[in-house]
């Protein structure tokens, strides 16, 4: 049965998420201005605050599925701030990779650690087949050499899932992922990058210099090199289907914050956004606001669609890319448009909207740029292979 309305139970839960988010929002400016610092694992307010997880309680009939709910919770949290949380989340992207491609033993051993994921290198953007970081087998150890950049939560994670090639000649088939824990000799964590936005977030650069790790740190323990075909690469790629709707949701939460702020400001100034009447006789500001709202709503629904498919256990490769690509452009349009609507006041750092404008810009860039997502969508609908459409 089609229903795109939230259940009362889910409404309650998301209200609790937003309540925490509003508290976290108080710290947003501080960590934006002090980018060398990290937000605490837990905010001072946490002690008097049960946390929304406690209000999750029993899922009831008519409640949304877990993937959908996770997406909506992420949206609610970033409605407060991208980086600051009442309590720090316990997982990184590497954990998803571990779940997707790790052996049972590996999941037991590292499941409780916070794992980042290191894919991008200075030489390769969103093209994983250009990975230069190498892994050489030396007795019972792998020896890693290479550089990684744009590693999300890379500074504070306990360890990382690194993409490296065991045989460059084999192309994508030679790419494997390895688990490396912090403190391993030869694993150097460079300072976090100075960025346009999401400054409190840690985005690290890694260097591996003859970094030796035990042989069984190869994720999935599949040492066979697949010639031609994508091979073990598939496993790690799975991660993307899980992360793209999340990344979309993270951006949309901030875009929604911008819309809410703008609506409130306009209302206080006497411009009420109403619905029903078409273009004419309406204030231009209200009409423009409604267009931005529609764009946001479309991206939000595309994201829920991708997550819902995941809940159904159905493939969502196409829909995950649609969600990511649509959100990537929607959040730019929305935050740019809100600042245009509010004018001079909106570019002041006395308000957070200028920060949301900077923060959301990452959405269309990381975890596969908008261009990469469109490639995936086009290949899918055209039935083209990677070689037929580059």
């Amino acid at each position: 049965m089609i229903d795109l309305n939230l259940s009362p139970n889910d409404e309650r839960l998301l209200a609790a998420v937003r309540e925490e988010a509003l508290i976290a929002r108080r710290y947003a400016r501080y960590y934006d201005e002090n980018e060398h610092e990290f937000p605490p694992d837990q905010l001072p307010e946490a002690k008097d605050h049960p946390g929304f997880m406690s209000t999750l309680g029993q899922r009831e009939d008519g409640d949304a599925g877990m993937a959908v709910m996770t997406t909506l919770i992420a949206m609610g949290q970033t409605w407060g701030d991208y980086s600051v949380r009442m309590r720090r989340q316990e997982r990184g992207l590497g954990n998803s990779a571990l779940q997707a491609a790790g052996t049972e033993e590996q999941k037991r051993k590292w499941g409780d650690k916070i794992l980042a994921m290191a894919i991008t290198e200075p030489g390769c953007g969103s093209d994983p087949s250009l990975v230069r970081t190498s892994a050489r087998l030396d007795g019972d150890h792998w020896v890693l050499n290479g550089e990684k950049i744009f590693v999300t939560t890379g500074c504070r994670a306990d360890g990382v899932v690194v993409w490296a090639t065991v045989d460059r000649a084999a192309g994508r088939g030679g790419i494997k992922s390895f688990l490396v824990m912090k403190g391993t000799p030869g694993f150097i964590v460079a300072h976090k990058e100075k960025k346009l936005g999401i400054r409190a977030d840690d985005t690290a650069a890694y260097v591996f210099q003859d970094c030796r790790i035990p042989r069984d740190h190869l994720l999935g323990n599949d040492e066979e090199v697949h010639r031609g075909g994508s091979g073990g690469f598939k496993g790690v790629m799975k991660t993307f289907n899980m992360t793209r709707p999340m990344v979309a949701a993270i951006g949309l939460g901030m875009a929604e914050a911008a819309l809410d702020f703008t609506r409130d400001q306009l209302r206080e100034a006497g411009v009420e956004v109403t619905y029903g009447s078409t273009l004419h006789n309406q204030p231009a500001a209200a009409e423009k606001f409604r267009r931005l709202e529609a764009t946001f709503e479309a991206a939000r629904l595309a994201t829920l669609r991708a997550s819902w498919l995941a809940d159904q256990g159905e493939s969502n490769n196409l829909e995950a890319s649609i969600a990511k690509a649509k959100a990537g452009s929607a959040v730019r349009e929305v935050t740019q448009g809100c600042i245009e609507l509010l004018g001079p006041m909106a570019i002041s750092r006395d308000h957070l909207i200028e920060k949301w404008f900077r923060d959301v810009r990452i959405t269309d860039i990381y975890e596969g740029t908008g261009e990469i997502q469109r490639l995936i969508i086009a290949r899918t609908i055209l039935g083209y292979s990677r070689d037929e459409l580059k």
Partner: protein
Amino acid sequence: MISFALTDDQQTVRESMRGFAAAALRPKARECDEAAAIPDAFYEQAWELGLVATQLPEAVGGYGAPRSPLTNAIVLEELAYGDAALALAAVGPALFAYAVADQGTAEQQQAYLPGLCGDRYQAASLAVAEPSPTFDACAPRTTLERQGSGYVLRGSKCAVPLADRAGHFLVVAREGDGLAAAIIARDAAGLTIRDDKTLGLKALPLATLELDGVRVAAGDKLGGSAGADVGRLLAHSRVAIAALLTGLGRAVLDYCIPYTKERVAFGEAIARKQSIAFRLAEMQMEVDCMRWMTWKAASQLEYGHDATRAAHLARTYTADKGMWIADNGVQCLGGHGFIREHPVELWYRNARTLGVLEGLASV
């Protein structure tokens, strides 16, 4: 609950409508557009599907299936995938029928619905749009005023579907500071009907109604003296148009994909150029978004929430993106997109037409 799952019934309906659109609509679309006419046989053929009667109460001769804006949104997308003008001809009478069924008094239902549940095609229509450069469905210039025991209608309406054959019209008008809808017969004194010639939907009979003091019996104001929620009635029609535009958008995309894969320029299929491939990807993204925006509004109607905002946003969004998709469909075909041998130029005209009209269909 957040769910995109069709019921088994909805899946069945979708399949059969898809088949009907492929067999009875798409093949006739061009011919009907050029002739600016739809053969009577088509009306009868469509009538046999019982599209209108299905969701009308058994008490008036309907099949008594529950009113479902969601199911209707699915039906309209599939029919418009075939052709929007023929789709509107097929479901037109529902404009009048659903409004009366949803908001009419018992007397009004008994008086006007049985005729729309018969074996032969029966038309009745809704009059919303007006030929004013600042037309706003929520602020019509047409007025309904008390006069003696009844009311009187003054103003003019345009782009009224099926006006050439409708037995009755439901006319949306301003009554004091509010909105009302009144039922009039085609032979009402003071009513003149003039055919409209339009940019798109050429095959669909559209007309202007001049309402020169048309008398309305007291009992013919929709909902009786209590009146009706005209905003809700408009929401039903906006979601319907959003669904039609979604179907049209999908038709354009599905036509461009094989075409651009076959068409060769500079040594390879143009679909392999990023400029075309990324455009097709964008079309796919928007067709999806159009559908979800439509479903969101439809599900608010379905479960009795206020759908004013969602219907408004769905309407605006699908009008913009539908136009964008049709425009790019023409561009994907280049010179051939401008020639009436291919359907994209028809979709280009229909997208713009659907994008500015109100009250063409109802969910």
